[in-house]
């Protein structure tokens, strides 16, 4: 057992030695330096749509997140697919925030065809009212979100306008309770 312990590695995102060299070297030591490539993605979005529609939540190495209002989400998604080059949705999920009386629906988008974008995940999020939650569907733009949206409907009660099947998917057919992932649904005994 040697007395000198091996130096602990820093966070995993630092190791990008075999990715395209045009991607800038990312430093996680100071949060005030925003990564260049990810910053350029969000800058393109903000210049195209303006500050009122696209709000940038965070820009980190490899991950960016923007917030758009629900009625503009189709335009922003088409721009992301056509001009920026993201081509599929990794996952679609919803989070319930009862304190703000809102549900946040978030699409994690990534790209298979573009080399530089294959390590990036752009999180496109929107917030809907908890009692009247309808948002237009994105399956015409990202077909890979179809089953995920259906699952978000049944787990949280968010209705996707234009989705062909807003129906039960994973839950039993005779489920008569509120959508399970809402915060007021308590598991038995807790």
């Amino acid at each position, binding site marked *: 057992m040697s007395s000198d312990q091996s130096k602990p590695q820093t966070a995993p995102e630092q190791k990008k030695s075999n990715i395209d060299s045009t991607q800038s070297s990312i430093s996680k030591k100071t949060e005030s330096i925003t990564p260049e490539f990810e910053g350029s993605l969000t800058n393109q979005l903000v210049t195209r749509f303006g500050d009122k529609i696209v709000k940038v939540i965070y820009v980190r190495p490899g991950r960016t997140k923007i917030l758009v209002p629900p009625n503009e989400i189709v335009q922003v998604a088409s721009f992301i697919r056509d001009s920026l080059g993201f081509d599929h949705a990794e996952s679609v999920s919803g989070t319930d925030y009862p304190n703000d009386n809102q549900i946040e629906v978030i699409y994690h988008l990534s790209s298979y065809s573009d080399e530089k974008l294959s390590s990036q995940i752009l999180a496109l999020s929107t917030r809907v009212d908890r009692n009247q939650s309808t948002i237009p569907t994105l399956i015409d733009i990202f077909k890979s979100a179809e089953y995920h949206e259906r699952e978000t409907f049944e787990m949280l009660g968010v209705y996707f306008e234009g989705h062909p099947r807003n129906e039960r998917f994973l839950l039993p057919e005779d489920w008569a309770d509120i959508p*399970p992932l809402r915060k007021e649904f308590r598991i038995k005994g807790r």
Partner: protein
Amino acid sequence: MENEQKFEETIKMGLDIVKETEEDRLMTLSVGPQHPGSGHFRFTIKVDGDYIVFCDPDPGYVHRGEEKMCEYRNFIQNIPHLERPVIHDSTNITYSYSLAVEELTNIQVPLRGQYIRALASELNRQVYTLYWLGIYGIFLGHSTMFMWPVGDRELFIDLLEALTGARVTHAFNIPGGVRNDMPEGFKDRCLRQVAYFEKRLAEYEDIFYNNPLFRQRTEGVGILKKEDAIKLGVTGSVLRASGVPFDVRKAEPYDVYSEIDFKIQYMKSCDSFARSTVPFLDMKESCHIIRELLDKMPQSGEVRAKLQPNPKGPAGESYKRVESGRGSLGYYIVSDGTPKPYRVKISVGSFRNMLALPFLLTGSKLADMPSIYWSLNYWPVEADR
């Protein structure tokens, strides 16, 4: 003459009465949870003669509410029940979770711990792919191809049992590293097993992949072109069999994978045969990765970072993904500053590949159903979580 006319008229009347409608031709079958070819999953198909015209998957028979249960347990207590969805690939599904929690709570993992984590992940990938191959064999009626992989898999399970203490549910990865160090003599045992296994892989190729019956049943069946694969968002070996060289270990290297030199295995033929060969090639590549990991591992060091009893971090969110046997497995964790996560979303490869099932089955023959369905690398328990 009159009689002939009357005769013809009567025949025409009779044929009008028994004319088939479109709906009468179709027969609805339910390939249900009790079926030798479906596992714990059901899909409804409508069949016109020998051709499938409509398919509708119906998952949810093993939906145990993992995501809801995660909100009632703290970060470390979540590990045992999060590894049950894919019980025989449990290291990978907790690997991704540990990476996401480490980012949220700012834990640094020691280098030797990272190497052992990657080694366990590769061994588990072999175990999973061998079981998949075994079930594939028995779906197509090749029972020798069930016995050989399941038997060879036991040798890898012995290695994992020596390392972690359990056969399939290891609970080995925790946020911060791994639970314990490798035992003595493990490295030599591992290298011997890998050398034996490479000889066996050559035998598998002979008996299964070069078998003319298997080739006939899978070549040209279920073609998924490259543009469709990208549009549908499939992942893992299904994507690599359609000509897209994408692997999370190369695109976004996590832990020590940036130091390991290996090639992405992909094929361009897009059919069922390619989807069943890509995992086999992945297994071969995995053997090289295991050797390299054992070579480059630091000889001594800590394997786990010291944690406080209830680890917690500032409020925030993180998304991390890992390459598992089925494809990219991502975790989206939202934390609100308490020791319990606020929301955990698991994005599994099986759920994403399920979208390709109705796409491929419509228009194909009923007899091709097992080879298309199982080649999509679909594990029902994981898709339902």
